[in-house]
């Protein structure tokens, strides 16, 4: 057991899989010699050499296109798109090419690959370098979408993503890179499509992802301590496939549900989860399902402004307290 940063967990997860399978190759901008702009891939070039860990030009379409072509023909590429926001410049591969190839060819073409990228705010990078882009990915049948909230989940979900025969969008949270957590020694392989109940509770269910998981947990502590409200916290981890059983199970128990999302309000992942719950757990609900999100505005750069936008522990506590005590 070692304490690892989320950042180092990325390199460890990739290394674990590259050591296991020489068909795993890794490409992206500044990922090799420089070890990544977030320093999350330090050491991989040295360990696996320049044929397997390759720096690319600033050509995101070429990066994802090449990853797709390599995956179709037998390799298992990991492609880095530095900031999540840059998926927009290579979105055709995310939306049209990679997810649809298998279906359109009636199963002839396979795309086992991982696209990893750093999303999320809190670093004062402004509106184009801070987005949570889960909702840019999860609407395409054929893709899988995960986002870990802790170092151990980074390693385990990375391994699961690389081993998965389908294309996986892997969103790391930039705000978590410096955070630490215990990671067991030896091989770690997690399972896609599984949510985790991180805290048991009886009064309400809080569903969160990425950095918001930590705020949800902190909010739950405060709700318990200050208001006697017992909140269950679900780390959804995998948006596609999504573990609706765990979510619906929790809602059946608590009767109230809150999602905590970093993205701007409209059509974030919470809308899908709330819609599923409203349809399938309607009669379990004791009150409206509520989405706690960033307001529907671009993210400002200045520190104080940014902090007012992204859901804070205070806001989560206050929203839930008000809903449950009114």
């Amino acid at each position, binding site marked *: 057991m070692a304490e690892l940063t989320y950042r180092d967990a990325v390199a460890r997860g990739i290394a674990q899989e590259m050591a296991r399978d020489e068909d795993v190759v890794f490409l992206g901008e500044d990922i090799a010699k420089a070890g990544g702009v977030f320093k999350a891939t330090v050491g991989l070039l040295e360990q696996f050499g320049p044929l397997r860990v390759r720096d690319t030009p600033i050509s995101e*379409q070429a990066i994802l*296109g090449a990853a797709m*072509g390599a995956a179709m023909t037998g390799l298992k590429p990991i492609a880095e798109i530095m900031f999540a926001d840059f998926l927009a410049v290579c979105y*055709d591969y995310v939306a049209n090419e990679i997810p649809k190839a*298998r279906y*359109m060819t009636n199963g002839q073409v396979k795309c086992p690959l991982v696209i990893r990228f750093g999303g999320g705010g809190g670093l004062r990078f402004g509106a184009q370098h801070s987005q949570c882009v889960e909702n840019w990915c999860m609407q395409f049948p054929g893709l899988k979408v995960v986002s870990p909230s802790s170092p151990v989940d980074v390693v385990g979900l990375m391994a699961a993503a690389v081993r998965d025969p389908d294309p996986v969008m892997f969103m790391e949270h930039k705000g978590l890179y410096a955070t630490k957590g215990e990671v067991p020694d030896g091989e770690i392989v997690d399972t896609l499509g599984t949510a985790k109940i991180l805290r048991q509770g009886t009064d309400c269910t809080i569903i969160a992802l990425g950095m918001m998981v930590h705020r949800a947990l902190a909010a739950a502590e405060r709700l318990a301590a200050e208001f006697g409200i017992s909140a269950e916290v679900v780390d959804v981890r995998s948006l596609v496939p*999504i573990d609706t059983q765990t979510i619906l199970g929790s809602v059946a128990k608590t009767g109230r549900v809150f999602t905590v999302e970093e993205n701007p309000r409209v059509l974030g992942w919470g809308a899908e989860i709330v819609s599923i719950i409203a349809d399938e757990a309607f009669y379990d609900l004791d009150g409206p399902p509520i989405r706690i999100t960033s307001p529907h505005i671009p993210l400002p750069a200045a520190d104080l402004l940014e902090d007012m936008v992204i859901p804070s522990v205070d806001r989560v506590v206050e929203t839930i307290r008000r809903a449950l005590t009114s």
Partner: protein
Amino acid sequence: MAKSPKASASPAPVNDDIGEDKRLEMYRLQVTIREAEQRANDLFFQNLIKGTSHLSLGQEAIAAGVAAAMKKGDLSFCTYRGHAHTLARGVPVEKVLGELMGRDNGLMRGKGGSMHLTSVEHGVMGSYAIIGAHLPIACGAAWKAQYKKTGEVTVCFFGDGTTNIGAFHEALNFAVIWKLPVVFVCENNLYMEYTPISEVTSVEHPAADRASANGLERIIVDGNDADAVYRIMRTAFDKARAGDGPSLIEALTYRHSGHSRADPAKYRPEGELEEWKKRDPIKIYKERLKSFGVTEDQMAKIDAEVMKIVDDATEACKAAPTTSSDILFTDVYADGGWAWRN
């Protein structure tokens, strides 16, 4: 503009660098493509093919010349105008027509349609309908060949209009710096959909004049002459297999039909089509074969064989069942199904 091939007066030696067998193969490929696509056109007007479809009538020499220079294991990436390249790699006519007709005997059982013909077993790694998308993808396939040292080469076909989209530029730079075994073949048929390429392009030769921007040689070939295409591809493949990186080839040609089935091609200047029809690749190739001493009978026999294949394929497709709904939910994910939740 490429020059017309010259037919010499007396039979030339059959055993030149190409040879009779290869030439007969290329002839057969061209006729197969022509007849199969004519048939597709007919079926369209009989309302047996729905949706859209993009024919290569007049452009057959490129598909044939390239395919004849390829080996088993080599890979092709085509566009929505990809029936020709798919057939050229040996995919049965029936499977192509079946896909166009949405029948259960189609290449992808109707799930992909005309614009996405794919036959991995023949090295046809897909037909791509979003302009430019497949150039980077072809780089990836070539990367695999390089990494695994398979010696396979990858060909990527695209049109003149495609040279103005960003992915074209990214793919070329990428292929050059990684020295990938990929050959980019631009079929310059003078038009994007309805707009002449010259009206929207900063250089005369949309592909060749951009070669130097990525340190590549400027290569232009007569795309209506299968021999010329075959020769230039052999050189490019040799280079790729030797580890010397990619090539970019601009093949000059013309499509006889409209852009897609809906297009009567009224935007063309009068007489343009007629001029190009004089240089019909199959006509050119017949003369070529004659100059090498191949007889009309030999050719007629091939024509008849092809026609029978196309006729039989048509009947088989008409008789084939439409695809049943049980494949609707298969192969979204690798587990065979479509489950996105538990």
